[in-house]
């Protein structure tokens, strides 16, 4: 058991410390770092989905005044390590997906670079491509493991027997489409080579991880790559490391001393910087006459790229959510001629829980039970995936508190029973879960600089989450001083290394390192340190790690209004109640949850990357045709927390709030749409076309 920090700054709704810089435009994002005479990169993308580049005619581009050079696979610097095919940009003429970089123009202005890129003529020896994910493919395969190291398949008890003899059965298939992360700030790199050192101003979620990978790929001593990323305009999982950054680094190598700027256009965001794989998910549930689950099966089919495997872990949440006598989960992949799928907010949980929580709603109806009560009835005592007790699990409290706040009680379960003017009205609920992840590889350094001030350094990055503020609060409580005595420095690999901002792990991983450094600092220097006193510590392993299963839980309630004439869906209100440990900064956490739930609303109603199989790339690659919800699409958000004193997760008692907001939202909305209309849409997004009868 861990002793939690005495909380003073933690738990306070401190305004975002970086807010003034952001609203006044003085917070510098990657592209905004100023240089004299930078060069600009504009890529040439393949317009075939598979084949060999046979010829590149860059003569017209090179002849254009202001063009510095055109990089192709014939003249690009060689990379030291091309084992990660996604990052092996311009190393040979092979085209693995449509939209791949096949050349890049470097020029004195962005306008010249983009015009010159349009003049580069590329010839291909095109091969037939294969980009369609279907359940009936005969070449689906089982990966060795799925993301985050989870086993591909699990089997608990005799599912077949239990399902065949179940009193109530459900067997349905759910689908989620390809979705693209699309942070507001596009992927951006400013690369500068000086005296053999590579410096990158980079829009990244993981400065250290990116720097180490770049060093390895390019063949540099890791100490010679530095990444600066104090402010990042969103990532949602897509700002790990993709070929765009390597391309900028290669181009900068060709013009040493000159910084090369490369920001993707919105259209370019739809190829090569990650996306959520489409999924096809078969769920089978069996229950006894009392509505207790006896059989649970979740079979996931997703896609990956032929060049690199990415196995979305969509069935993983089903391994822990509910009590069931038997359980089977499987993942199968189709390897296609497509860009590599990647992380997108709550990878695994977001698509997987759409399927499971839609099925739970359908099953509750089949059992004649209220969807809230049905879930509570199937609450497990331990985590079946590990056999461990939960460090804390408050799903039931979330469901009950959510039901109370939302006004769920007395709900008429009949579908299509409420209408106001021309709107069908319905309500729906779904549960959420996300694991507590502690990543290794973070160190924090604390220095007393006199005048009651402490400098706290860690190469963490704030991708819009509020990390600047939350880490300051943690440091203050860890040191037992005021937040205004902390000078936090993040977003630079010159600082002590930090793990990636992903998996809702930042506060747990970085905060634990800061806590440990503060403990060492106080042990060594007491409470009256001398100027220059310093301590550094790494994120310790969690001694409780093997003893407990650690997850955050939540419940999302949604009201849907569906226009009887048009099938248009509007969501006037949602309630989200979350049990996510101690909330470091309720204001920032609320923003995180609203963002997650809004993204879940987009997943439910709007987002879908349309691939034309004849061509192989995303056709609706802009915000006029790829819709995400904006202010007019969101209604009232009621966000609440179940207070938890979890002494097992980390010294802050926090579980992470970056992802759990999106997890249950799409299913809650789909369930509400069913309740409103009697139409069960099992393939997202729920568009008017699917509701018009």
């Amino acid at each position, binding site marked *: 058991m861990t002793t939690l920090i005495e909380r003073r700054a933690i738990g306070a709704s401190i305004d975002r410390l970086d807010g003034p810089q952001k609203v006044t435009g003085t917070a510098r994002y990657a592209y905004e770092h100023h240089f004299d005479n930078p060069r600009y990169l504009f890529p040439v993308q393949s*317009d075939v989905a598979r084949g060999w580049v046979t010829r590149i005619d860059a003569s017209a581009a090179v002849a254009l005044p202001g063009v510095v050079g055109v990089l192709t696979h014939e003249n690009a610097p060689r990379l030291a390590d091309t084992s990660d095919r996604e990052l092996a940009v311009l190393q040979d003429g092979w085209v693995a997906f*449509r939209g791949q970089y096949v050349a890049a123009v470097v020029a004195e202005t962005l*306008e010249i670079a*983009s*015009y010159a890129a*349009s003049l580069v003529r590329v010839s291909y020896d095109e091969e037939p491509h294969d980009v369609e994910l279907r359940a009936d493919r005969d070449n689906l395969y089982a990966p060795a493991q799925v993301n985050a190291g989870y086993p591909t398949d699990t089997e608990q008890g005799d599912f077949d027997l239990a399902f065949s003899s179940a009193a109530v059965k459900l067997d349905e298939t759910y689908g989620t489409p390809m979705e693209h992360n699309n942070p507001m700030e596009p992927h951006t790199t400013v690369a500068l080579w000086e005296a053999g050192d590579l410096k990158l101003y980079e829009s990244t979620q993981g400065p250290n991880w990116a720097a180490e990978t770049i060093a390895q790929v390019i063949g540099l001593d890791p100490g010679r790559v530095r990444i600066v990323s104090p402010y990042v305009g969103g990532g949602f999982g897509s700002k790990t490391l993709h070929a765009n950054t390597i391309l900028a680094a290669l181009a900068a190598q060709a013009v040493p001393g000159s910084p090369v700027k490369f920001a993707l256009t919105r*259209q370019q965001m739809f190829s090569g910087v990650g996306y959520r794989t489409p999924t096809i998910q078969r769920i089978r549930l069996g229950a006894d006459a009392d509505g207790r689950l006896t059989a649970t099966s979740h079979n996931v089919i997703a896609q990956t790229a032929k060049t690199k495997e990415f196995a979305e872990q969509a069935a993983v949440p089903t391994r822990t959510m509910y009590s069931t006598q038997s359980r089977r989960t499987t993942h199968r992949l189709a390897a296609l001629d497509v860009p590599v799928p990647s992380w997108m907010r709550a990878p695994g949980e977001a698509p997987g829980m759409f399927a499971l929580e839609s099925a739970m709603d359908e099953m509750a109806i089949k059992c004649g039970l209220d969807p809230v009560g049905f879930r509570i009835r199937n609450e497990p005592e331990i985590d079946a995936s590990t056999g461990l007790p939960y460090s804390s699990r408050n799903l039931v409290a979330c469901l009950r508190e959510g039901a109370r706040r939302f006004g769920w009680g007395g709900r008429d379960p009949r579908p299509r029973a409420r209408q106001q*003017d*021309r709107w069908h009205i319905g309500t729906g609920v779904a549960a959420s879960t996300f694991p507590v992840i502690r990543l290794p590889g973070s160190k924090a350094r604390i220095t007393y600089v006199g005048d009651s001030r402490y400098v706290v350094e860690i190469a963490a990055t704030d991708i819009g989450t509020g990390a600047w503020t939350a880490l300051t609060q943690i440091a203050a409580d860890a040191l037992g001083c005021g937040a205004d005595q902390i000078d936090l420095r993040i977003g630079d690999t010159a600082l002590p290394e930090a793990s990636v901002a992903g998996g809702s792990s930042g506060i747990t991983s970085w905060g634990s390192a800061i806590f440990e450094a503060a403990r060492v600092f106080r042990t060594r220097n007491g409470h009256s340190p001398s100027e220059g006193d310093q301590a550094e510590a790494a994120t310790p392993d969690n001694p409780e790690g093997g003893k407990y299963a650690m997850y955050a839980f939540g419940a999302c309630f949604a009201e849907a209004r569906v*226009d009887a*004439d*048009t*099938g*248009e869906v*509007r969501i006037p209100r949602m309630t989200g109640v979350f049990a996510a440990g101690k909330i470091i900064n309720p204001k920032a956490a609320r923003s995180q949850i609203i963002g997650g739930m809004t993204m879940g609303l987009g997943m439910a*109603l*709007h987002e879908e990357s*349309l691939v*034309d199989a*004849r*061509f192989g*790339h995303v*056709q*609706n*690659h*802009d915000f*006029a*045709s790829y*819709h995400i*919800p*904006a*202010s*007019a*699409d969101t209604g009232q958000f009621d966000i609440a927390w179940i207070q938890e004193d979890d002494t097992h997760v980390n010294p802050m008692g926090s579980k992470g709030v970056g992802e759990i907001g999106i997890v249950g939202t799409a299913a809650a909305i789909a369930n509400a749409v069913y309740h409103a209309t009697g139409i069960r849409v099992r393939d997202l997004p729920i*568009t*008017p*076309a699917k509701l*018009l*009868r």
Partner: protein
Amino acid sequence: MKPFRYDRAADIAGAVATLAGEPDGMFLAGGTNLVDLMKLDVMTPDVLVDVRCLTSAEIEDLPDGGLRIGAAVTNSELAADRKIRSSYPVLSQAVLAGASGQLRNLATTGGNLLQRTRCVYFYDTTTPCNKREPGTGCSALEGCNKDHAIFGASRQCVATHPSDMAVAMTALDAVVRVQGPSGARAIPITELYRLPNQEPERDTTLDHAELITAVDLPPPGFSSNSRYRKARERASYAFALVSVAAAVQVRDGVVRDVRIALGGVAHKPWRAVKAEEALRGWPAAEESFRAAAEAELEGAAPLRDNAYKVPLAANLMTRTLLDLSGQR
């Protein structure tokens, strides 16, 4: 983006004369659509002749009781105009249903009429598109076509016209005034637009260097009893799945006269002539409205992904007419 020249003229005649000598040039007004398309190399004019300050930015009374909307009147100003709002509410509603506040502040009346389609293949220079590159083929015909036409399409093009404003103007029988190298002329808006047929690269019947100078609205009549209804995939900034602009005159429970135009269903704002004919003289009741809508939709030819537009258009027409005749 391809380099281009930028030119200005002292007056309309000068602008027309300048562009007449520039076969690959274009007029520039608000630029909210054209400049985007140039950034994507979808349109590559070699010269832009700026007409933003040349045409009228005023809405004036006409002697017959109608209104003349200067081509440079912004969408925001048009939607907010008191006379438009009271006498032609369908037009104000249509303009406000389109784009965003920022775009409406910049976009002009003339430019709005000449928006290009939002077909995803038109916007993607790596795929065939007859409208962008004549003779290359229509990718949408057997591709992603959920947003495409159900009326009047050809094998060459199944795109739709994206404007909301033009749909309302079509229902209002607006007249578009243009000035060109061979003088001025007035074109009924129903004749401004054309179906794709064998020349989908041509959206309108305008000749090169003809400049829209104004749009005339006929005297109000029953257009004060009008409404625009747009079905869209989200509440904020989205192009119409289907929209309806309608005006109806009901006396003694009978439809005396009616105007209906549909958006999002064809290469041009679609005047629902068959529905109008089916309604005149019939009771203003749900059965006649639905029958009229269905009469119109008998001619629909949906594609792979857009069959939903048929019931959607029928429902929208029926509901809008019911609302306009004071029924729910």
